[in-house]
């Protein structure tokens, strides 16, 4: 994908999306229907920034798990979720901010038993466990009923 000629920073036609050479930011509706939009926006940004494929898959995975978790466990909240993505020297940093929510630290590993036999397995709970396998770092901040999860991923 070609970077817009002569334009280092611009605001896309869709309201609320900010895109520059090394960062993008957008607000997403609190709905699973936003997953496709989130994927397309970030994938376009990653292609523009030449982010390695080996990073893109786990970043999409973790980003979607965190977003899905916010949607699933705050169903009565009507606020949009703020997504911010940055690149630096081949690494990616992603932040997801949720507004007017209770304190829930998604970065605590739930220690799912991934060696359990089939009959002891139940669907659900894997996502927050898997994200720890895929990121280099992950941090959670909570203040004034606002939670932000930030994770980084680079080529190891």
């Amino acid at each position: 994908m070609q970077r817009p000629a002569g334009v280092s920073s611009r605001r896309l036609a869709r309201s609320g999306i900010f895109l520059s050479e090394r960062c993008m930011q957008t607000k997403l509706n609190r709905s699973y229907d936003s997953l496709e939009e989130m994927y397309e926006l970030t994938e376009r940004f990653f292609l523009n920034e030449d982010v390695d494929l080996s990073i893109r898959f786990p970043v999409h995975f973790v980003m979607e798990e965190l977003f899905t978790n916010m949607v699933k466990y705050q169903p009565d909240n009507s606020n949009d979720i703020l997504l911010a993505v940055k690149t630096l020297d081949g690494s990616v940093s992603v932040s997801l901010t949720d507004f007017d929510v209770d304190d829930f630290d998604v970065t605590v590993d739930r220690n799912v038993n991934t060696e359990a036999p089939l009959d002891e397995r139940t669907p659900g709970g894997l996502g927050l466990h898997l994200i720890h396998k895929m990121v280099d770092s992950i941090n959670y901040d909570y203040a004034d009923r606002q939670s932000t999860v930030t994770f980084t991923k680079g080529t190891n």
Partner: protein
Amino acid sequence: MFQIDFGNDGEIVCTGRLDAAQCEKAQAFMDGVGDTQTLDFSALEYISSAGLGVLLKTQKRLVGSGGGLKIINVNNHIHDVFRYSGFHAIFDIETPGG
């Protein structure tokens, strides 16, 4: 975009991205199959934990009746997700290289 349908040889072909928004569609299809089934993931680009839940629920039902799922042509990224999830021990999984 996610698609799921039977292929020419009776295998179940998944295409695109199986994320949380597509799981209802995938589960509805998988609820209609029985016995032993082969899932061809050669055109599946992505799977989320919600997609893993669809596979797990289907596998439990099929194994309970003497069948099961075989998943073939799994790309490296999805294979990593399976490995982190311990799915290699509860599914018959084949990567393109065997």
